[in-house]
């Protein structure tokens, strides 16, 4: 379980040469131009963004854990019900408590 590489924030492929691969030439120039437009001013990052994301991520984890527990519980209950059914076969008629009438003698 290697911790993810947090030291390099940059995206992996930023090399402009590697991007417009298939058709070099005219589309490449257009792409460069638009890429420059896209690299304009950035919106301000709220200072509590990481804390908000962390709290939400913890809620996701807790939710997932709860779901897993409920699933386990249901599985155990289903197994117990199956075991009980196999043991006591409630669909068979109950054993007779009286002896059948003796006839013919």
């Amino acid at each position, binding site marked *: 379980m290697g911790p993810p590489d*947090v030291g390099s924030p940059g995206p992996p492929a930023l090399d402009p040469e*590697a991007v417009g691969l298939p058709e070099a030439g005219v589309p490449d120039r*257009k792409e460069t*131009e638009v890429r420059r437009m*896209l690299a304009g001013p950035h919106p301000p990052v709220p200072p509590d963004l*990481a804390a908000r*994301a962390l709290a939400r991520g913890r809620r996701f984890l807790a939710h997932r854990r709860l779901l897993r527990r409920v699933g386990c519980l249901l599985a155990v209950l289903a197994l117990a019900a199956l075991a009980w059914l196999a043991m006591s076969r409630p669909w068979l008629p109950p054993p007779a408590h009286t002896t059948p009438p003796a006839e013919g003698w």
Partner: protein
Amino acid sequence: MRERRPARQRRQAREFESFVAGTAGRLLHAAALLTGEPPSRPAPAAEELLTYALARTYAAWDRLRGEDPYVRVREEMAARFARTARRHRGARGGLTGRLSPQERLVLVLRLHEGEAEEQTAAQLGLPTDRVHALCLRALAELRSRQSEPASAGGAGAGRREAGGSQPAVP
């Protein structure tokens, strides 16, 4: 295992926070390009999108196994944006405001994030041709917008496909 859990959680939270500190600016910019919000003021829809993607990435933090968390966040953002594209249909005044959600998605993944066409196509579940077409349309739209004067002075004057003489002012 039980005893070590809090320590592991603390370490993960620290790693996550330093990751966010390093990448939030760029990711939020990508998110704002997706939602079409202008960069001049806070972008609530982009923040929501990014917070969701970061939270999902944090929830999978110990299962990343060497995968770049940045790429994971980008994927989560793209997937959520594609699911909720109807919400982002209208123009919000940003640079990409007049593009359709799908065009914005392709534009951001291909040009802003520098993904290859095939990668974007696989990620969005679209044919490569379609990604190519969407990208071309987004490029044309953005460039025609750039060549227009900032205020609507001449009605159809700057509407022609830009040749190359325009100054590259964003």
